[in-house]
């Protein structure tokens, strides 16, 4: 009888080791969800995903020259840094398969230089993968001198594969001020005023 219990206990250790491996694997799985989610978003256009990399031009894609799709432009400034950011045109009528350029204007209303990253998003989400940018100010960080205002182009085309039911595609840009810890002097002092306040993500 005693023998039997000890045999049981040994195999208990083996089960435990296997389960521990499962736990470690699932910890990895949590991280694996990140690239999996990105691939999933790319394929399905989940959550307004739109690629932030340059795509090749339309080339000589087949398309219907009579088809018209409305592209709407909106711009948002994230956070409380002093910026203005707006589209030059609120909408354009485009033919899927042809190349167009739209402009956005950003102004750093702050006297020191700073850096921004502009992030695109498309609504409806499922149209995201059919919206291709060949050139965009969102591909890289944008540096702004103090009080600089800049007109920035985005060159894009809508893939003719865009489903018929999508008559409008909204291209939304959000501007994030991403300057690092080297805040100009007066800002740092002002920050002292709010000592103990929660720090922002960066």
């Amino acid at each position, binding site marked *: 009888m005693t023998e039997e219990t000890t045999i049981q206990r040994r195999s208990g250790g083996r089960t435990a080791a296997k389960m521990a491996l499962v736990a470690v694997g699932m910890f990895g799985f949590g991280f694996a969800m990140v690239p999996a989610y990105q691939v999933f978003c790319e394929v399905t256009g989940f959550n307004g995903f739109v690629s932030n990399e340059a795509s090749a031009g339309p080339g000589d894609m087949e398309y219907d020259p009579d088809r018209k799709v409305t592209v*709407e432009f909106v711009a948002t400034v994230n956070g409380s840094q002093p910026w203005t950011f707006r589209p030059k045109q609120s909408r354009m009528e485009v033919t899927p398969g042809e190349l167009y350029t739209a402009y956005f204007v950003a102004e750093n209303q702050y006297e020191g230089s700073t850096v921004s990253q502009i992030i695109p998003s498309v609504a*409806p989400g499922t149209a995201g993968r059919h919206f291709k940018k060949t050139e965009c100010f969102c591909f890289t960080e944008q540096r702004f001198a103090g009080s600089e205002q800049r007109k920035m182009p985005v060159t894009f085309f809508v893939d003719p594969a865009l489903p018929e039911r999508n008559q409008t595609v909204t291209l939304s840009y959000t501007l994030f001020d991403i300057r690092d810890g080297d805040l100009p002097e007066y*800002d740092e002092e002002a920050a002292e005023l709010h000592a103990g*306040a929660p720090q922002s993500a960066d």
Partner: protein
Amino acid sequence: MNQNKLTRLFVASTAALAMLFSAGAAAESDWRRPWGVNLPEGVTSLSQVAYSMHMLTFWIVTVIGVAVFAGVFFSVWKYRKSQGAKPATWHHSTTVEIVWTAVPFLILLGIAVPATQAMIKMEDTSGYEMTVKVTGYQWMWEYEYLDEGIHFYSRLDRDSDRARQRNPEIRPRDVEHYLLNVDNPLVVPVNTKIRFLLTANDVIHSWWVPELGWKKDTIPGFVNEAWAEIQEPGTYRGQCAELCGRDHAFMPIVVVAKTEEDYEAWVAEQQEEVNGDVAVDDDDLSDMEMDDLMALGEDVYDNQCMACHQAGGEGMGDMFPALAGSDKVLGDRDEYKSILLDGVSGTTMQSFASLSNQELAGVLTYVRNAWGNDDDGGDVFQPADVEDAR
């Protein structure tokens, strides 16, 4: 669907009644009332679909629930040992088990069909006639009419704001539409398919007006879309529905739906204000009287600053520093101005550059002189000073 027909009939008749009693002005809906227990049928086809789906499912689950209760209570009454019940010994019946697996499955299938149809309808924003962009902030909303060039912020109204303080001057019960009223409501036309584009400035919020039938999260960096076509002129109230920090409860939403003519008139008025009337605009840099500055400043303070920095400028904890006796407030003028214009990064102090020069001059003057801050005697900020600092 019988349910649908009934609902439609009910909606139509209540709508007719409502028309009789209201003169078409921005009437309050009677859905919001004490002891309210149910979802609104609302004023959009989406809210009505949601309502009928809700009622259909509600009745189905109620019947199931009553059956479960009845079954248990019957057993409790009938099969008690004290009544001499003898226990049976059976413990299995394949037939019965198949039945109560299959029947709920079929019922669910029956609900899934209309639910799917409703979802397809909700996602279809095509054929819209106007677009409103909604941006969530900690803790207010920004509305932008894409084609009309109208743009404004919408915050908790002043009375609610006063009543929601600890030890308030007025009691919540004395405020009309306490916590459900704003300074600038979203004005839209009826019978117009409106597309909403939703995003946020800081954290995730959720834009919800029950009578429009849905809520949608506003996510920083991303844009969502939704739509509504309001059938009845009226005022419809809602709230932010996603926890967004300290004042999550204090960023209501008010939608005023007007007839098409009234809406056109409102748009014209707004555009005139933006283009013509410069009295409240940044262009007027003429000096103001100290008294006027203080009065305007107090107004601005109550609406914009009091929630965090408190009525007596005493602040609140480390997050919201005191302004009374503050070095920063009483120190260098330029630095003081820049705090308001630029905000303080890394803190909850946002930029208030969106206020007019006059409003900023007012609040700068007010804070510099209120609560015993005026020892050095009447330090005034004029609109031109603010313009210089921009």
